[in-house]
């Protein structure tokens, strides 16, 4: 059914269609509208047989989700930014316990300085938590991915984070096609936990495991993650057949045939980039977009196939690792091991700075003009802001334009000397 609604409401409707048994909520921008809407649906009876719990913190939101899931019901929660960090201890536990919780992360920067706007530093901070992490390029993609996430989580036996760009998607009013309850019921059977806490037959979950078996348990956890790759592919196929929606998957390629450069992008920038590469095509410039949907598990083989023999790849990253470089870059490099592909990272769009069509076109032209000199280049940087500090403090002035890492390193020569 077609509706013109806010992304957050679309997600709430999608989650309700999945018939969760417990929803635990603690508000934090830009996720709040999702759980607010779900709370209303439980209150009005649109969503039945569901416990909606308001708690006093994100730590409790994750703890209650763990308890509900261990108790044998389908559990959902949502968070962002500092809230995600506050629940981190529980996040790792949920994965270790193999609980198929689905959680929306309305991706947002992390403070300090405080910033409520979108980038990927919150979701990517949980890279090693053992959760599946699925990124969404549009509200339709996010809506569909939430429905698929429950099935993937339950088949794999691991929790899933559905990562959608905060504000850019959550607060955008767009045309959304909601599947019917019948379609979702056909796709997603009633939840039947393999193992759950039952007072009549008490068991223990998450008991202590010492050095004699801890490594082996971690290997089993990694095996589940690897199992998730074909499961994501199959579940996506099933969902697409039922709904006709082209959403989800491990990755998606746009204009990739014979592309001279391919961009790898996660999230809402993909749509902007598709328009930008269409404009470039009209100028005779052939650039492709690889929309990376699954970040964990990372689809190494599929990325290698999607890049193919293309010589130049730029990863547009909306976060980075201090003291290192881009977070996606090492993954793509691993995927391309043994091939002479030039792989670069363009960091932009931090803390809500908009990634424009001109940003994307600039990155493509920068690459095709052979101007990428380092692995990492910062784009859309206002050097004046940096210089206003560095010039007084250290007598250093940075140039305008894209800022390669080597330029930053050069400024340190003076400090060393």
């Amino acid at each position: 059914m077609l509706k013109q609604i806010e992304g957050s409401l679309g997600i709430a409707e999608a989650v309700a269609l999945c018939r969760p048994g417990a929803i635990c909520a603690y508000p934090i921008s830009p996720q709040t509208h999702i759980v607010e809407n779900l709370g209303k649906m439980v209150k009005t009876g649109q969503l039945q047989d569901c416990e909606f719990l308001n708690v006093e913190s994100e730590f409790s939101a994750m703890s209650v989700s763990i308890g509900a899931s261990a108790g044998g019901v389908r559990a959902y929660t949502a968070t962002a930014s500092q809230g995600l960090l506050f629940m981190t201890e529980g996040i790792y536990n949920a994965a270790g316990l193999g609980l198929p919780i689905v959680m929306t992360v309305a991706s947002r920067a992390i403070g300090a300085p405080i910033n409520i706007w979108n980038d990927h530093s919150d979701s990517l901070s949980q890279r090693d938590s053992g959760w599946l992490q699925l990124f969404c390029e549009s509200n339709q993609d996010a809506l569909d991915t939430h429905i698929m996430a429950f099935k993937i989580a339950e088949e794999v036996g691991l929790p899933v984070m559905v990562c959608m760009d905060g504000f850019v998607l959550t607060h955008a009013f767009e045309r959304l096609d909601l599947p019917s309850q019948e379609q979702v019921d056909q796709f997603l059977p009633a939840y039947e936990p393999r193992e759950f806490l039952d007072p009549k037959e008490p068991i223990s979950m998450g008991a202590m495991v010492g050095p004699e078996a801890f490594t082996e348990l971690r290997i089993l956890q990694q095996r589940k993650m690897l199992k998730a790759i074909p499961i994501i592919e199959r579940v996506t196929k099933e969902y697409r057949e039922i709904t006709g929606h082209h959403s989800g998957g491990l990755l998606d390629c746009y204009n990739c045939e014979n592309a001279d450069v391919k961009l790898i992008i996660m999230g809402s920038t993909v749509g902007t980039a598709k328009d930008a590469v269409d404009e470039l095509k009209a100028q005779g410039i052939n650039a492709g977009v690889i929309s990376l949907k699954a970040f964990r598990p990372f689809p190494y083989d599929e990325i290698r196939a999607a890049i193919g023999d293309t010589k130049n790849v730029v990863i547009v990253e909306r976060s980075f690792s201090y003291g290192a470089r881009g977070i996606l870059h090492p993954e793509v490099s691993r995927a391309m091991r043994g091939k002479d592909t030039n792989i670069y990272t363009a960091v932009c769009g931090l803390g809500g700075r908009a990634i424009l069509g001109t940003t994307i076109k600039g990155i493509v032209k920068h690459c095709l003009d052979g101007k990428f000199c380092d692995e990492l280049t910062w784009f859309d940087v206002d050097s004046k802001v940096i210089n206003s500090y560095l010039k007084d403090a250290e007598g250093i002035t940075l140039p305008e334009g894209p800022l390669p890492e080597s330029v930053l390193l050069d400024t340190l020569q003076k400090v060393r000397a």
Partner: protein
Amino acid sequence: MLQIRLHGRGGQGVVTAAEMLSLSAFLEGHFAQAFPSFGSERTGAPVVAYARIDDKEIRTHEPILEPNAVVVQDKTLLGAVDVFSGISPDGYAIINSAESAEVVVPELVKKLPAGHVLTVPATDFAMQKIGRPLPGAPMLAALAAATNVFALESVQKSFQTRYPGKVGDANAETAALAYEYIKNLMNGGNNA
């Protein structure tokens, strides 16, 4: 693709107006998108919201820097914010004012085609029918009258869908006043 930027102040329903604009276009079978400029919203602070209308899927999520139409819900923004920044040479501007466009924005009137810069006393209409200074519905109706991109009935229906009952109906009546006002203005005042 038609790209519209709406300016106003916190509390005037700017974000709602953008959403209702997208809903109006949706009701007529178009693809539409609306989103706010995200900030720490507070009453009275300048607020920007965006809307796009197209006949194919709207994929971009960048803010609108080169609008085809600018809607200014609060005249006091004119000196404070560059509300017409990037406006296309054949674009439209609708300003909430009881004074004529020639008085309010003489430079812009010279810059854009005749009949593309229009003022409408939207707050006055809102006070008459809604009893509160919420100029969203009349501003959208004025845009509809000026551009013919969507119908008055769609603006009315979108507000009535969002606010069923008295509030929605009052918004619909206010919209009708503004629509007539602009149509009359464009007709050289001959509708009266």
